[in-house]
């Protein structure tokens, strides 16, 4: 008699842990603790559920143990194996799994009920349960396919297997498509309306599984079409939005199986994720509707027609000799080439000569928010040297040398003009420094696919090559001075 209460209270505690977890995750000092609290909450919820099942008699032990073991191994393996550059994709993938799981739970429940002849007669229970199943399916499948699309876009594209390798030993690369004529929005709208209509129809004919499968199909398609027109540069925002949706899907699943902890945790994540989405939009200087309904960025690479003579490490080392202030501006290229340790070594060399070194961190440098901070922290760069955009911009006019390593869009002066895909995005004013050194492999464009005038300015020295290799050569040259 007392058991269900104990488990209910256990669920309540776990919901409270989630709540505190989310709250702590949003502040730098408490974030690791926040994550741990969330994990404890989840562990508690699982244990309480198992205890409850144990009380009622476990019949599917193999299935349960197998599922848990399999999921744990795969999840842990992915989490451990992933490289830092691959993090955003992985988060998107996990998110898709979450949405998919919610949809599957709903599907399993409805099929099981139909099979067992346990369909309620028309009345509040039927309406509430079937609507919840329909909605958790709609949101869940959408999250699954949308997240998989987002993952592909975050990778930027893929190598076609079996094609001829080029001179750098790589196979043919295709970009993930970004395509969205204006009329696609109508299609998306119709799909949504059709799915909702199908949910209404499931109530009329609760035993008809066709409707259920149709909802799955339509909402899966909707997820794909939803992400298709959105440029890769906007993917973090989309993933955050999908994250919010996977929370909502979990909450609906909670209505399906009548469990409060799913409702609480799911809707909390749903709401918090939505707020985070807005915060991220603001950081990228965009509005959510603009992100979702106007295609932008990440698509076709422009062909570069202008040329610029490259410089060499020795020349750059000489320029850096005897200066008093140097700002290092890292970007995606530093992440790809894992140049952070070499960068840190260079900074140490400069500091030994009493040069003041700081790092200018653009909020969307790299491929996920905070990407640069993570990498530079890994290389033991002191936190105080990581300066945020606004602050570094006021320092740059007094800076002797700005070293831009693997960044492009985030220092592109065209953004100030307010036009084109980058228009209006705040940038780091690298061009205000006395000398600008840019380390990248070519003159080609960055994420947003926009040419960068900064490369062609007189004060700019281009150091063509892989980021890590060039930094190491630069360090060697500097030591040889």
């Amino acid at each position: 008699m007392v058991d269900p209460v104990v488990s209910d209270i256990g669920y309540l505690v776990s919901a409270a842990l989630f709540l505190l977890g989310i709250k702590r995750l949003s502040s730098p000092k408490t974030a690791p603790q926040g994550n741990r609290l969330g994990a404890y909450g989840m562990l508690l919820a699982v244990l309480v559920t198992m205890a409850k099942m144990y009380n009622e008699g476990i019949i599917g032990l193999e299935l349960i143990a197998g599922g848990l073991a399999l999921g744990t191994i795969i999840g842990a393996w992915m989490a451990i194996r992933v490289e830092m550059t691959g993090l955003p994709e992985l988060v998107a993938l996990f998110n898709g799994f979450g949405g998919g799981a919610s949809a599957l739970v709903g599907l399993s429940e409805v099929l099981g009920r139909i099979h067992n002849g346990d369909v309620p007669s028309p009345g509040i229970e039927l309406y509430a349960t079937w609507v919840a199943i329909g909605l958790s399916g709609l949101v869940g499948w959408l999250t699954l396919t949308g997240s998989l699309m987002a993952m592909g876009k975050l990778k930027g594209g893929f190598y076609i297997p079996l094609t001829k390798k080029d001179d750098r030993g790589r196979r043919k690369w295709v970009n993930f498509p970004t395509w969205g004529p204006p009329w696609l929005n109508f299609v998306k709208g119709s799909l949504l309306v059709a799915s909702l209509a199908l949910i209404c129809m499931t109530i009329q004919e609760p035993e008809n599984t066709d409707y259920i499968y149709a909802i799955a199909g339509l909402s899966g398609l909707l997820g794909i079409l939803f992400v298709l027109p959105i440029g890769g540069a906007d993917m973090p925002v989309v993933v955050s939005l999908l994250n919010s949706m996977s929370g909502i899907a979990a909450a609906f699943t909670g209505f399906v199986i009548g469990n409060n902890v799913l409702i609480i945790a799911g809707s909390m994540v749903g709401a918090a994720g939505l707020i985070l989405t807005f915060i991220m939009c603001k950081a990228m200087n965009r509005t959510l509707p603009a992100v979702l309904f106007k295609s932008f960025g990440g698509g076709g690479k422009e062909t570069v027609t202008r040329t610029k003579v490259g410089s060499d490490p020795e020349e750059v080392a000489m320029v850096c000799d005897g200066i008093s202030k140097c700002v290092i501006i890292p970007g995606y290229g530093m992440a790809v080439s894992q140049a952070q340790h070499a960068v840190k070594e260079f900074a140490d060399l400069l500091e030994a000569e009493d040069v003041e070194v700081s790092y200018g961190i653009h909020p969307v440098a790299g491929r996920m928010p905070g990407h640069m901070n993570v990498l530079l922290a890994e290389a033991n760069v002191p936190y105080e040297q990581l300066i945020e955009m606004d602050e570094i911009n006021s320092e740059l006019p007094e800076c002797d040398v700005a070293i831009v390593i693997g960044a492009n869009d985030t220092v592109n002066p065209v953004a100030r003009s307010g036009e084109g895909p980058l228009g209006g995005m705040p940038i780091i004013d690298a061009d205000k420094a006395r000398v600008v050194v840019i380390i990248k492999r070519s003159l080609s464009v960055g994420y947003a696919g926009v040419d960068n005038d900064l490369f062609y300015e007189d004060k700019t020295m281009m150091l063509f090559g892989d980021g890590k290799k060039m930094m190491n050569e630069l360090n060697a040259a500097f030591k040889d001075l």
Partner: protein
Amino acid sequence: MSLTLTALVASITVFVLAIFLGFELISKVPPTLHTPLMSGANAISGITIVGALILSNSEFHNGNPGLSAWLAFAALVMATINVVGGFMVTNRMLEMIAGKKNRKKGGH
């Protein structure tokens, strides 16, 4: 599990309160934490694992798992990946950001 109106309204009450709570919880997040927060929240949304567990146990017919049991199994695997991978990866990110700082404090 017959659902009464009162129970439904109570659930909706909880739903609404939790949504409000979610809105209030997050107000200002520094950019560095956007990704870990997203990733951690995502792991929490794997709470659907509870549903998958329950259904993996119940949807049997004469002791044999039917289609819906296998669906629940698939849901369980997915949800577990989401939960375990999600919390671990978030932890890795945060260790990168914050852990280093702490170690430094101790070391130097």
